[in-house]
């Protein structure tokens, strides 16, 4: 069974200059799409990946990463909707390519579904109240 996961990888600086994602393809037959990357020599590196593959391979691949000392978190943790700042105007609605924002037809209030978010950051520029924050 093929599964897909969106994860944020945090590399310790000792691993930043090592080829790692390559092994995901070579050794575990995983397909990945880099959604976002920040890798600076001598510093911590961060990578947002969408990984796809057989469940067994996916689990083995993730174990391989963890054993190397890479921290793995689900992607949605890194995008934050600061509800106190939100005015529920809905400026985020049309800009979002994955419909992660919805407006309740009765209350007219906005809600954010982290699971649908791909961290494209379009909402960050579109929100006039800076209620969308990225931790990256």
């Amino acid at each position, binding site marked *: 069974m093929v599964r897909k996961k969106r994860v944020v990888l945090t590399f310790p600086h000792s691993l930043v200059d090592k080829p790692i994602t390559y092994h995901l393809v070579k050794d575990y037959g995983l397909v990945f799409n880099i959604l976002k990357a920040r890798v600076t020599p001598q510093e911590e590196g961060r990578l947002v990946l969408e990984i796809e593959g057989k469940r067994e391979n996916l689990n083995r691949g993730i174990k391989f990463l963890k054993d190397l000392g890479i921290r793995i978190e689900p992607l949605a943790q890194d995008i934050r909707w600061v509800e106190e700042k939100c*005015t529920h*105007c809905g*400026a985020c*609605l*049309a800009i979002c390519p994955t419909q992660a924002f919805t407006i309740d037809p009765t209350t*007219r209030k906005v809600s954010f579904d982290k699971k649908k978010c791909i961290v494209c950051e*379009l909402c960050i520029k579109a929100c*006039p*109240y800076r209620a969308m924050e990225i931790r990256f």
Partner: protein
Amino acid sequence: MAKTIKEINERIKKGKAVVVTAEEIIDLVKEKGIKRCAKDVDVVTTATFGPMCSSGVFINFGHTKPKIKVGGGKIYLNDVPAYGGLAAVDIYLGASALPDDDPRNKVYPGEFGYGGGHIIEELVAGKDIRLKASGYGTDCYPKKELKTKINIRDLDKAILYNPRSAYQNYNVAVNLSDRVIYTYMGVLQPRLGNANYCSSGQLSPLFNDPYYETIGIGTRIFLGGGIGYVAFSGTQHNPRVKRTKKGIPKEPAGTLALIGDLKKMSSKWLRGTSFTGYGATLTVGIGVPIPILNEKILRFTAIEDSQIYAPVIDYSKAYPLGKETVLKEVNYAQLRSGSIKIKGKEIPTSSLSSYAKAREIANILKGWIKKGKFLLTEPVTPLP
């Protein structure tokens, strides 16, 4: 049966006034009819909560010892320049003012994370604001430099004065070009990627009184969480536009100049706002009561989103060049449904004005009137 504002106020004072919001009146009229509602309902409350660039505050920060004359000199609040070309310590801070060292659009699109609107929000929230001023020194005002902190509670006066607010209708912005554009109507994706609009529609004050029969100069309103007044017709006020058969403007029309005591307002209803690639501004909460004096006025307040039309305009070329051709007219029910169809393409829509917050304001104002805390006013003079 016609009523007078005086009669309505008597009922408000006794706690007997029947007050509903501009949203509630729609169903009420459908249920009971115009005649019955005009008789039963005393006041309909309207509201809006949207970005309004023509906003700002007059501040008198009090005299220093020795005295300084800022007029003719320079004045900054948290590094954002204010206008000092007035008397010694009277200044005006505009919502779209930016720090001198803000990169603006040099790194395109600029963020505009902090400007006049944000300072107004912080000031109202009771935060200390750094003030830096310079004057040229006179015999009666010898001090030339001033660095201090101000707080709203210590100010002699802080007055919100908006030369233009509560636009009666507004454009729906789209982008026909091949690149992303950053406008005061938000981020617009290329090739009709999205459509942004900005009005509370059926809740909006001037849609509920399209010929300004009750809203006039002197009208008491909810402004930024406190009490304000209509000071005058706003800049660019233009009642002579195309209207529907029901009299509702089909393009931007009337506007209001508003004034009120900032000290009594709240940062919940005055929000610093940033438009990427465009600038800083202030989002203002406004609530306007409409006295139901007769059936005609009641009929106007029963207007609903599906009967209010706005023009769709291209903001990549037509708007900046001042050659606005209307691509299509769409109504607010369509806009609120989440998508509209232009040139055969289904386009997702977004609002810049918060309907949820407008509804909250209309209900707060309704509560004030019902409790007898807020009386209605006769306009001193009608708007043009």
